[in-house]
């Protein structure tokens, strides 16, 4: 049972990381495109990108924290 819990926790962490990675990747892509289209707005785009990425990261960290508790 203990081993199963650990397995579940690690799989959960992996899933959370996949989701977060995907999300942050999409943000990065969109931000790059936006900067490429409007290089003069690069600062604003970067700020917003970091904020949004931080929000997604927050969700992922919650998931990881939950997994940690299950470990």
């Amino acid at each position, binding site marked *: 049972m203990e081993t199963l819990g650990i397995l579940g926790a690690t799989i959960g962490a992996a899933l959370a990381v996949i989701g977060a990675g995907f999300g942050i990747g999409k943000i990065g892509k969109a931000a790059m495109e936006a900067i490429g289209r409007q290089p003069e707005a690069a600062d604003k785009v970067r*700020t917003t990108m970091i*904020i949004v990425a*931080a*929000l997604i*990261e*927050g969700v992922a*960290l*919650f998931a990881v*924290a939950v997994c940690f508790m299950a470990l």
Partner: protein
Amino acid sequence: MGYGRKIFNWIVLSALALALVLELPVRAHAHGEGGDVIVKDIVLEHIGDSYEWHIGKFVGKHVAIPLPVIVCSRENGWKCFSSSHLHGGHSYEGFHIATEGAYAGKVVETLPDGSQVRPWDLSITKTVAGLLINSTIVVLLILGAARHYRKRRITDSAPMGLAGLVEMLVESLVDGIIKPCVGPNYRKFAPYLLTAFTFIFINNIMGIIPIFPAGTNITGNIAATFVLAMATFLVTNLFGTRHYWKEVLWPEVPTWLKVPLPIMPAIEIIGLFTKPFALMIRLFANIMAGHSVILILICIVFVTARMGATVNTSMSIVSILLGIFMNCMELLVAFLQAYVFTMLSSVFIGMAQEGAGHHEKKNDIDNLTTKR
């Protein structure tokens, strides 16, 4: 270009040196327990706390700085003694360090009836000692720069050296994130945000450096990030405007979302707490994960020690190279996490500062944050 390359070379060299120095405690650990390397223990030992500051093993001898243990006994009140009394599982005045159970690694008190309880423990542990050292560095750094300004007139040229560095940092933070995120009365909050940034940044950097006065894992400790996030929470909500509280308690959404069951207010109120909670977890997890990864990479050297010379050599090279890479990465993360913490704090404070003027923008950010 040449200058940049020189700096890059210097960083690589110092990272290499750091990676080599980082091996010391690991090696000590590896040989201490019959040569069997348990990576998890090593990592947890570094990330966790201890009552003495283990520096390393030199010439077959463990070198550790004993730190004061301050505990409040249920029987005899406050006690303060050196942690060397507890070294090696010894008991002192009824206190000893538990080896297993719920309080493993902590000081516990044995009561006369034989039961073990955890006393109030305000010991200067390794983390606390590192925290105090780093706080002193932060204060000296900023007050030194401020003193520099007190002696100068405005008509003098821009400062050089330390004050110049601090000024560059302060100016870029104020112009880059604090002013745009907090809004018109940023002057009131800039000192707090800058303090948070400097504090986190210095602690992050000191956490990466593995040798003695540095090397404590402070921002990778949940208690430290809890206090930092709590500070942001308090600043945000204590200085919140009426408009902010109205948005929290009576947001502009269809009435059925508010009247019979206060769904939206409930979400908003939960959002009040999830924001600092995310700040806390983010900083903690990033720094802790970085330290863990570096340690695990260096542990590869010792894990492969029994697999023969060829495997060990090749894996050592790989682990050192990866360790250098991760150290560089951690330098970036040290700055980035301090920056992100400051930026998000600014955004939260700015949201609580907004009057009716910037209604639309506030809603956008609110929607983003409540989606969690």
